[in-house]
C-alpha cells in the first residue's frame, strides 16, 4: 500500500541504474541518514559508545569481508589479523608522525593492511574454498604471533598494548580519554558512510562485476578475458583495506587502547558470522549482520534488568547466549541466503500487499 512504485517512471539510463530506484527507498534512506547524523549524536553515551560506534565499525569490517567472501567467493579467516594490521599501522604512524591528522593515518593504515592482504592472497590463484580458508588461517596465526612478538609494533610498551594518544580534528579531541562519544561517533559515521558509498560503486562497476564473474565460475570468467590473478588480488587488497580501516577505528575510536588479543581468531569468526547471517554479497546485509550478531546480545542482556526481572548476571549471559543461538539458526532456516534476502522478500511482499499474487 505505502510501498508501491506505481507511477514512478524511469526516463533515463541513469535513473534505471540508480542505487535506490524507488522513491520510498530514497525517503527511507534519507530518514536513516538524518537520524544518524542529526538525532543520534545527542543520544546517551551508553547508546553511542556501546551500541552505535562498534556497530558501525563491525559493519565496515563485514563489508570488507563481504567483498572477499560474498562478492569474489574467496573464503577468508584472516579478518581479525587484517584488522590488527590496521590498528598497529595506525598506532605506529601516529607515534612517528604525531602532527599529521589522525584521520589521514586511519585511512593510510588501510593501505598497509591491503599490502599484507595481497601477500597472503597470492595462494588464492591455486587454491580455493576450504583450502584457501586454511591458508588465510595461517595468515591469522602468523600475524597474531607478530603482534605479540615484535615489540617495535607496540613501541616496546611493557604491557604489550596499544595506548591511544589524544588526537584532535579541528581542535576537538576525537581519540584518547577526553574525546566525547558524540565526536567519536560522528567521525566513525562519516568514514563508514563514505566507504560504504565507495564500496557500493565498486561492486556495481567493472571491478565488482569481474569479482562476481570469478565467484560464479572462474573458468568462464577467465575465458571472457578476466585476469584471475589481478581480480583476486584486487579483491584481497580492497577487502583488507576495509578491514584495516575498521581495525584502526576499533582501536582508536572505540576501545581507545588494548592488547593484541582483540584481533584473535574469534574476531575473524565473529565478522564471518556477520557476513553469513547478513547475506553473502550484499552491503545492506553487512549492516544487518553486524546488528544481529553484535547489537542483539547487548539488547538481550539489558532486557531483564529493564523489565525489572531479577536474574543473576551469569544467568542473563547464559540466556542471551541461547537466545542468540536459536535466533541465528532460526534466521538461517527461514532464509539461508541471509537477512539481506529476507529484507528483499519483505520489500517484494510489501509491494504487492494487500493483494499478493
Amino acid at each position: 500500500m505505502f510501498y508501491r512504485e506505481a507511477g514512478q517512471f524511469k526516463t533515463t539510463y541513469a535513473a534505471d541504474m540508480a542505487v535506490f530506484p524507488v522513491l520510498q527507498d530514497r525517503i527511507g534512506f534519507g530518514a536513516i541518514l538524518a537520524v544518524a547524523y542529526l538525532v543520534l549524536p545527542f543520544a546517551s553515551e551508553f547508546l553511542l559508545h556501546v551500541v552505535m560506534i562498534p556497530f558501525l565499525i563491525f559493519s565496515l569490517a563485514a563489508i570488507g569481508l563481504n567483498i572477499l567472501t560474498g562478492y569474489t567467493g574467496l573464503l577468508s579467516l584472516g579478518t581479525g589479523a587484517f584488522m590488527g594490521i590496521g590498528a598497529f599501522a595506525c598506532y605506529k604512524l601516529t607515534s612517528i608522525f604525531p602532527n599529521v591528522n589522525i584521520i589521514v593515518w586511519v585511512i593510510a593504515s588501510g593501505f598497509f593492511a591491503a599490502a599484507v592482504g595481497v601477500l597472503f592472497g597470492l595462494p588464492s590463484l591455486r587454491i580455493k574454498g576450504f583450502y584457501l580458508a586454511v591458508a588465510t588461517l595461517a595468515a591469522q596465526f602468523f600475524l597474531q604471533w607478530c603482534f605479540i612478538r615484535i615489540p617495535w609494533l607496540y613501541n616496546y610498551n611493557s604491557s604489550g598494548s596499544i595506548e591511544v594518544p589524544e588526537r584532535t580534528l579541528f581542535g576537538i579531541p576525537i581519540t584518547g580519554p577526553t574525546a566525547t562519544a558524540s565526536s567519536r561517533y560522528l567521525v566513525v559515521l562519516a568514514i563508514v558512510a563514505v566507504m560504504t558509498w565507495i564500496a557500493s560503486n565498486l561492486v556495481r562497476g567493472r571491478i565488482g562485476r569481474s569479482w562476481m564473474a570469478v565467484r560464479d565460475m572462474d573458468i568462464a570468467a577467465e575465458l571472457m578475458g578476466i585476469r584471475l590473478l589481478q581480480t583476486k588480488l584486487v579483491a584481497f587488497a580492497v577487502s583488507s583495506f576495509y578491514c584495516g580501516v575498521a581495525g584502526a577505528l576499533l582501536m582508536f575510536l572505540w576501545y581507545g587502547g588494548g592488547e593484541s588479543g582483540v584481533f584473535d581468531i574469534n574476531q575473524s569468526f565473529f565478522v564471518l558470522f556477520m557476513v553469513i547471517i547478513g547475506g553473502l554479497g550484499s552491503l545492506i546485509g553487512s549492516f544487518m549482520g553486524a546488528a544481529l550478531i553484535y547489537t542483539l546480545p547487548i539488547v538481550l542482556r539489558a532486557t531483564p534488568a529493564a523489565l525489572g526481572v531479577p536474574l543473576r548476571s551469569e544467568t542473563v549471559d547464559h540466556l542471551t547466549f541461547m537466545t542468540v543461538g536459536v535466533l541465528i539458526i532460526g534466521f538461517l532456516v527461514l532464509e539461508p541466503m541471509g537477512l539481506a534476502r529476507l529484507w528483499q522478500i519483505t520489500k517484494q511482499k510489501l509491494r504487492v500487499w494487500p493483494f499478493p499474487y
Partner: protein
Amino acid sequence: MRCKHLVLGTALALGTVAIIPVAASAEDSIYVPLMTYRTGPFSASGTPIANGMVDYLNMINARDGGIGGVKIKVEECETGYDTAKGVQCYESVKSKNPIVTTPYSTAITLQVIPKAGVDKVPILSMAYGLSAAADGNVFPWVFNPPSTYWDGASIFVKYVGQKLGGVDKLKGKTIGLVYLDAPYGKEPIPLLQELAKDYGFTLKLYPVPASEMQNQSALWLGIRRDRPDYIYMQGFGAMNPTAVKEAARINFPMEHLIGNWWAGGESDVRPAGDGGKGYLSLDFNVVGHDFPVMQDIIKYVVDKGGSQVASKADVGENFYGRGVLNSMIIAEGIRNAQKLTGRQVITGEDMRRGLESLNIDQTRLDQLGMVGFARPFRVSCSDHSGHHAAYVAKWDGHTWVKDSDWIEPMKDKVLPLIDAAAKQYATSSTGWPKRTEPCDKSS
C-alpha cells in the same frame, strides 16, 4: 506478516536500550558494581573470586547495616573475561554513580585506565593490571595494592635464594619462566632479566600461546631437556592445571615449580590429583575458614542462603579469600572516604581520596577479624601499590598451606622499573593529564 513482527520487535528492543541509562539509583545507598566472570574459559577462577567479593559486602550489609549506616548496593556485571563485554559493563553502570571499578582482567583494566580520570571513578585492580599504575603521581585514579607482578617475580627469586641458602648461590643456576603469551604473562620478563644479570642465573623463557593453553606437552618436553632448576609460572585459567599435570608427568619436582598468585587457585591443582602435591604458589591471603571474618560470612550470608557457593567448604578457599580481601579494600576505602569528607553517601572522587590514604594496620585487621588472614598494608599518594610482602603456599593434596614466611619484594629493583614504565606511559600518550588531585594525609 512475520516480518512486521520482526520490525516491531526490533523497534521495541531498541526502545528498551534507549531507556536503560535513564534509570537512576537511590540516593541513600552506595553503588558498588563488580565486574565478575562466572561464564567462559576462566570461570573456574572467576567464580570463587566473585563469590568472595559479593559475600563479604553482603555480610557487611547484614552484620553492620552497611558502612557508616549506608547500605552498599552490590551489583555484578558478567564480563566472561572478555574485553568488549567489560567495556559494555563499564558504560552501562556509569550512569548509576559507581564509586569504584573492579575490572578483574588485565585487558579490561588497560581499557578503563584512561577513562578513570575523566569519569571520576577510581579503579581498584588488586595485584593485577598495569604494574606501572603503582606510580600515584602519574596514575592518581588507579590503585593496585598490595603488590605488583614485578614484586611477585622478585619475591620468587628471593624465595629460591633462600632455598638454595643465599642469593649468591643463584649463580650458574637456570630459572625457567612458563608464561601465557599475552601482555599479562610477559609482565615479569624485564624484571627477571635484570635479576638474571645481577645474580648470574640463566633465564629461560617458555611461552604458552593462548590457543595452546591446554596442549603443552611439547613445551614440557623442552623443559625436561633443559632441566631448569626452578620454574616461575605466570599463567591463568586453563593454562595452570595443564602445566601442573604436564610437570607431574615429566616428573619435574613440584617443589621447584612456583606459580604467581593468580596461578594458585584450588581448581588449578586439583585436576592433577596426587601429582600436584607439593606445587607452590605465591599468595598474599592465607587460606582457611577459621578467621573471624570467614565465620561471620558463614553466619550472616552462607547460612541464610544468600551466597552462591556450592558448599560451606568453599568459603575460605584461596580465590574466595582473594575476593574477600578485594572487597575489604573497597569497604575500607568507603569508610575512609566517609571519614575524610564527613558525608555518608560518597562519590567516586571521595572514594579516590579514601583509597589513597588507606592504611590498614594490625589493630584495624584485628577489628576486621582478619588477623593472620592478611598482612597490614598501606598506600600513599605517590605509591598506589605499597609493594608488600607475599608468602609461598604449598598444595598438600587437599588445601594450600603456608610454606614460607612473608617475603618482602626487592623494592630497589622494582621501583626504578615502575618509574620508567609510568614515565613512558605518560609520554607515549600525549595529553596524559598532570596530576592535579590534592594529596590527603594518610589515615
